[in-house]
């Protein structure tokens, strides 16, 4: 057997798995969206004028955008700290960052319900300290969705940025300082541009995960914060299979389109070229 066959053989089990449990279901879903009950594009035509679909799509995109921005603003400084701390300390901090990963999303979402509820921890605290006299409506609001999702997705932003920052040659900031750059300029002109590949990876990861998020918005969100994944689940419950399949395809296309656009942004492309030099 020729030696170059070995890598192909190594990949075959996973390829078969993906074919049966991923590619076939997706294909059957695609098929369903245009073959229910007979060959038709009627479902898609309806989608384009469906105000519910458009509103839900907008909510989904907006939520993903806010969550991505939130994780970036909160995550970058932590990633920077991780890259600067001594190794032993950095490992502990990284463990703290990753700790939420080891508990299920469901548990964390319920935890947010406990915190944000009408008689939740935050309201109780504010009431007892006299800052407010009536409980605030925190749960089942867009704010609750944003806060909970930022919390859950934060590690996905921190880890790629920290790993890129850690790989930056320590001689570069030194050289910059030696050549006359103040600490702020060292960051703005050297560290920040060199960390773009990590920012790009983290942003893409969080954005794409946000688009398909289901459990958290379903639990802490309000009836008006319907996201695409929730709408799909709703339609499946109603046995509206064709419409649900149609929505799934729309979500898939939207995600792929965003990944494509993102990879073609000049800043990201340049950064990736430097990173893979």
């Amino acid at each position, binding site marked *: 057997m020729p030696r170059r066959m070995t890598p192909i053989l190594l990949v075959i089990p996973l390829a078969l798995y993906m074919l049966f449990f991923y590619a076939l279901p997706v294909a059957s879903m695609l098929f369903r969206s245009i073959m229910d009950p007979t060959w038709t594009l009627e479902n898609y035509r309806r989608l384009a004028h469906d105000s519910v679909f458009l509103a839900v799509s907008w909510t989904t995109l907006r939520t993903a955008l806010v969550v991505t921005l939130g994780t970036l603003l909160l995550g970058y400084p932590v990633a920077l700290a991780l890259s600067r701390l001594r190794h032993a300390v950095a490992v502990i901090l990284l463990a703290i960052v990753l700790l939420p990963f080891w508990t299920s999303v469901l548990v964390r979402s319920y935890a947010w319900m406990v915190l944000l509820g009408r008689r939740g921890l935050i309201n109780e605290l504010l009431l007892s300290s006299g800052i407010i006299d009536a409980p605030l409506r925190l749960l089942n609001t867009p704010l609750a969705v944003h806060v909970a999702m930022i919390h859950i997705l934060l590690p996905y932003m921190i880890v790629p940025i920290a790993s890129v920052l850690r790989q930056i*040659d320590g001689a570069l900031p030194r*050289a910059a300082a*030696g*050549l*006359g*750059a103040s600490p702020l300029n060292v960051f703005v*002109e050297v560290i920040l541009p060199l960390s773009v590949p990590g920012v790009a990876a983290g942003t893409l990861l969080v954005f794409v995960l946000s688009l398909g998020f289901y459990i958290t918005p379903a639990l802490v969100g309000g009836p008006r914060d319907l996201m695409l994944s929730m709408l799909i689940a709703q339609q499946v419950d109603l046995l509206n299979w064709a419409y649900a399949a149609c929505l799934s395809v729309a979500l898939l296309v939207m995600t792929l389109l965003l990944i494509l656009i993102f990879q073609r942004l000049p800043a990201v492309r340049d950064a990736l070229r*430097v990173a893979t030099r």
Partner: protein
Amino acid sequence: MASVSGAGRHVSGGDKVRGASVVLSGIEKRYDSVGAVRGVSLDIRSGEFLTLLGPSGSGKTTTLMMIAGFETPNAGDIAIDGRSVVVLPPYRRNIGLVFQNYALFPHLTVADNIGFPLKQRGIDRVTRARLVSESLERVHLPGYERRYPRQLSGGQQQRVAVARAIVFRPRLLLMDEPLGALDKQLRENLQLEMRRLHADLGITFIYVTHDQEEALTMSDRVAVMNEGIVVQVGTPEDLYDRPCNRFVAAFIGESNFLSAIVRGIERDMLVLDCAGTTVRAIAQQTPIAGQTVTLAIRPERLRFADAAAAIEENRIAVTVSEMVFAGDCCRYLCHTASGATVVLKQPSGSMVRRRHRGERANVLWPTGDTAIV
């Protein structure tokens, strides 16, 4: 910024700048109570090319990093042009720096890399472009402005790093093993270029290397460091011909070490007994008669005796144990009657008679080439 911009603003043309003088007084650096640098004092003159030479871990790079400002000494003072700089952060010291692996910014073009120190000093875009192209010409890379560091060879990257370090006309240039990663041929070419650059610019160079040949070739003076202290400072000739101790004699070039007993002084010459043979050496200090000392003799200063020795030459009887042909010379490994090893370097060529294994011979060397360490 005001204090550093002065030197940058007046940059232009080929006019010489006076180099900075650097005085290190008793500087020390400890890491977790381990002394990396244990009291280094050095007086580096304006416009001098001084090399810090030593094995790895000798404290030479730490000393350089303290001058640059990346490390703070635990004790002692560093003065540049008579002004203490210990409290100044690196970006306020106005020193040119070339790092071991060049440390070029991978996301910037060659022009932006070289323009970086100028930009930090608030120099406008037009002046910047002119100075960058001047600097590139100086390092023989004209027209490379738009390339990225990854598109350059190691030697070219090194030149860009040098261009970036001198573009803002610093009066002091620090270099940390800048040629370490290059192959031998290129390294030798660049050594000459650095020498020329030093002569052209007239600024002070402090150069760190572990390569003794590089240190001897390039420097006005060399400070040999070992275990955190300066062992000897001097011109390359001083260090080679008059090493002050065994470490210097062995680290710089090669040395034969023979132990001898002092007999006395005779017409300014020290008379010694080397395993039964009388040898002479120039008395540097005056050892007491009867004291045992070590003689250091360079292998290339030795030769086999064909005729009677001149009066000012030392002679010792040896047996040839091994001969190695090395192109430009033959290296002989010999042993004296008392078992001491003597290495002799003989120029190769048809005019010299080769000795063979087991052959007995007399080895001669001028009394003036005997160092006592």
